C-alpha cells in the first residue's frame, strides 16, 4: 500500500477517523476483565465475543450480500467440530500445534465446506438461496445424530484445551487467558471483515445485493460475487466455531441446528443488518437478554419474539439503523430539538411496556405457579398475583401509557421533521 502516503488530506482524516473506533474497542476489550473479573462474567463476555464474530460473518451474507440464510449455523458448527477433533488429534499424536491457531484451522475447514455448498447454492439469491440453505441446514443437522463418527451423536465431541504445549507460557487453564485469546481473535476477525467490506469484492457484494442485474452489466458475475462472499462468511463463521470449541471444550448438535441458525438471523437483524456495527450491538444485546433476562423471567422468549417482530415491522434497520437515523440531526446540529419530545415519550412508553409486562407476568404466574403460591415480585414490588388490583393496575398502566404515548406522537414527529430539515428561517 505505497500509495497510502499519497492520499489526500481528506481521505487521510477518514483513515484516522476509521482507526479510532478500533483503537477504542481494543482498549475496551483489554480493560473489561479488570472491571468484571469473575469467571461467570468472563464466560458471558466470551460468549458475546463468539456471537459477535458469528453475527458479523452472517451479516456478510444478509446485510452486505443480501442473501438470507436459514442454515448458517452449519459453518460455525462444522468449524467447531473440526476444531474439537483437531484438539483431540493434537493431544493424541502430540503434534506441535499451539492452541491459538485452532480457530484458523476451523475457519479453513468451514471455508472448504462453504465452497462445496456455495458452488450450487449461490447460483440464485433470494428465495432459492434461502430454501437451499434451509434444506442443507436440516440435512447436516439431521446427519449429526446419524453420523456418530464425526459428530459424536447427541453428546457431541469434547476435548481438553490444556493439551500441553504452553503457548508463550500460557496454558489456557484460567478463564482469563481464554478471554484474551477470544478477544484477540475477535479483533482480528472484525478488522478483517471490515476491511473486506472495503475491497473491490466487498463493494461489489453491496452492488449485487442492491441490483444484481446492473452488476452483471458492469462485468461482474453476480453469482461469483455471491460465491466469494459466501465462502468468506463461512470462513469467519468457522472461526467463531473454533473459538466456541476452545471456550466450552465441547461441540454438540445444537451448534449447527436450525434453532442456532434462526438465532443468528435474529441477532443480526435486531442489531441492524444495514451497518457494519449492527450485528455487534445485536450480539451484545442478545447475549445479555439470554443470560440476564432469562434469570428474571421465564417468558423471556415471548418478549424476545415480540421485540423481534416489532423490529421487523417498525425498525427494519434494527438498533443500528435507529441510532444512525440521528446522524442527520446531529450533522445539522439540531439533535437538541429531539431531547424534550424523547423525554416526553419515554415516560408513557415505559409505562406502557411495564403495564404489558405486568399483565403477561401476572397471567403467567396465575397459570403456572404452584397453587397457594400467590405471592410474586415484579419491579421490586411484592404482591398477591391472584388479587384483582395488580392486574387492573397493569392493564390501566398499559392502556394509559399507550394513550399518552399516542398523544406525544404528533409533537415527536414534528420535532423529527424539524430536526431533519436544514435551517431556512434565518434567511427570512
Amino acid at each position, binding site marked *: *500500500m505505497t*500509495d*497510502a502516503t*499519497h*492520499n*489526500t488530506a481528506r*481521505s487521510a482524516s*477518514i*483513515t484516522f477517523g476509521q482507526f479510532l473506533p478500533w483503537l477504542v474497542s481494543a482498549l475496551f476489550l483489554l480493560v473489561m476483565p479488570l472491571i468484571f473479573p469473575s469467571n461467570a462474567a468472563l464466560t458471558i463476555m466470551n460468549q458475546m465475543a463468539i456471537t459477535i464474530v458469528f453475527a458479523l460473518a452472517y451479516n456478510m451474507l444478509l446485510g452486505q450480500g443480501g442473501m438470507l440464510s436459514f442454515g448458517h449455523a452449519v459453518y460455525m458448527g462444522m468449524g467447531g467440530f473440526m476444531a474439537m477433533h483437531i484438539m483431540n488429534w493434537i493431544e493424541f499424536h502430540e503434534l506441535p500445534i499451539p492452541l491459538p491457531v485452532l480457530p484458523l484451522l476451523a475457519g479453513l475447514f468451514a471455508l472448504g465446506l462453504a465452497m462445496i455448498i456455495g458452488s450450487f447454492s449461490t447460483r440464485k439469491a433470494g428465495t432459492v438461496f434461502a430454501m437451499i440453505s434451509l434444506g442443507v441446514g436440516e440435512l447436516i443437522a439431521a446427519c449429526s445424530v446419524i453420523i456418530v463418527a464425526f459428530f459424536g451423536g447427541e453428546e457431541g465431541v469434547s476435548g481438553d484445551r490444556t493439551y500441553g504445549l504452553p503457548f508463550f507460557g500460557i496454558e489456557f487453564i484460567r478463564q482469563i487467558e481464554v478471554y484474551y485469546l477470544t478477544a484477540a481473535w475477535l479483533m482480528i476477525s472484525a478488522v478483517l471483515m471490515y*476491511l*473486506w467490506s*472495503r*475491497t*473491490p*469484492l*466487498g*463493494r*461489489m457484494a*453491496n*452492488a449485487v445485493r*442492491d*441490483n444484481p*442485474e*446492473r*452488476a*452483471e*452489466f*458492469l*462485468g*461482474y*458475475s*453476480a453469482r*461469483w*460475487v455471491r460465491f*466469494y462472499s459466501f465462502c*468468506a462468511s463461512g470462513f469467519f463463521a468457522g472461526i467463531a466455531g473454533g473459538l466456541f470449541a476452545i471456550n466450552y471444550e465441547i461441540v454438540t448438535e445444537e451448534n449447527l441446528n436450525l434453532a442456532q441458525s434462526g438465532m443468528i438471523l435474529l441477532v443480526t437483524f435486531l442489531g441492524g443488518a444495514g451497518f457494519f456495527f449492527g450485528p455487534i450491538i445485536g450480539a451484545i444485546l442478545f447475549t445479555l437478554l439470554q443470560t440476564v433476562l432469562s434469570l428474571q423471567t421465564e417468558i423471556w422468549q415471548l418478549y424476545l419474539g415480540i421485540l423481534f417482530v416489532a423490529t421487523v415491522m417498525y425498525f427494519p434497520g434494527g438498533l443500528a439503523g435507529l441510532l444512525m437515523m440521528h446522524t442527520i440531526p446531529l450533522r445539522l446540529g439540531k439533535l437538541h430539538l429531539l431531547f424534550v419530545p424523547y423525554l416526553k415519550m419515554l415516560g408513557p412508553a415505559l409505562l406502557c411496556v411495564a403495564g404489558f409486562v405486568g399483565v403477561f407476568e401476572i397471567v403467567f404466574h396465575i397459570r403456572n405457579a404452584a397453587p397457594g403460591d400467590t405471592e410474586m415480585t415484579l419491579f421490586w414490588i411484592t404482591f398477591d398475583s391472584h388479587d384483582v388490583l395488580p392486574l387492573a393496575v397493569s392493564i390501566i398502566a398499559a392502556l394509559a401509557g399507550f394513550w399518552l404515548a399516542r398523544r406525544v406522537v404528533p409533537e415527536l414527529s414534528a420535532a423529527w421533521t424539524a430536526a431533519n430539515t436544514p435551517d431556512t428561517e434565518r434567511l427570512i
Partner: protein
Amino acid sequence: MNAPDAPALELAGLRKSFGKTEIIRGVDLTIARGERHAIIGPNGAGKSTLFNLITGRYVPTSGSVYLNGQDVSGLAPYKINRLGLSRSFQITNIFPRMTVFENVRCSLLWSKGYRYSFWHMVGRSRDLTEATDAILEQINLTARRDLPAGVLSYAEQRALEIGITMAGGANVIMLDEPTAGMSHSETEYIVNLIRDVTEGKTLVMVEHDMSVVFGLADRISVLVYGEIIATGTPEEVRADPRVQEAYLGAALEAEH
C-alpha cells in the same frame, strides 16, 4: 480475438421466440465503429427485446451477435460486458443504497483490473478515486458525490446511469430510451451529455423522442414487428415511404 477491421456490432439472422410467439423475426444489422445508431419503432415492435438479445439478458432462439467480430450470442451479460459492451436501462437501474461516488466507482472496478480482488482497499487507490471523480465531473454530479443515489432527482439518476454505463470504458455503448419521461430542458441536457461522453465510441440507442434521434444519430434502423424495415441516415429514413407508412408519420404527428 478482436478483429481490428470488424464492425463494432453485427447481428445475423437474429430470432427470438417466447413460447409460440416470435418477437424478433430475423434481424440483420451491421453497425460500424464510431457510429451513432438509433433503433426506432412503434410500441411492441421488439426494440427492448432486441436490446436484451444483444446484451446477453436473453439467449437468442437462433442467429448470432458479433461484438467487434467475436460471436457473443448466448454469453452471460458480464462476459459480454468484459468484451467491451455496456448498456443502460429503460427503467433507471442504479444502486440506490450506495452513494453516487460508489455507483461510479463500482462500474470502474472491473475495467481497472480489480476483478474479484479482496486484497486491495478501494479507498486506498488514488487512481480509482481520481478516475471516479473525473467521471462525476463529466456527468456534473460532483456536488452530489456523497449522497445515496436513491435520493437524486430523476434526471440526475438518468445522468448517473449514463455515467455508470460509460465508466467502464466500453467502446460500444447501448442506451435504452435515455430520455424517457424527461422534460424538454432535461432532455436537452441529457442529449448533450450523451454526445460528450460517447465521443469516439460506438453508440446504439433505442429512443422514442424523434428530436433526440434525429439530433444524435448518424444512422437509424426502423424495427416493426420484429423486423428491420429500413436502415439509413436520418434523411434516408425520413424519406422512406415504407417507414412513413408503417410508423413515422403517425409518430411524428403524435410528437407535434
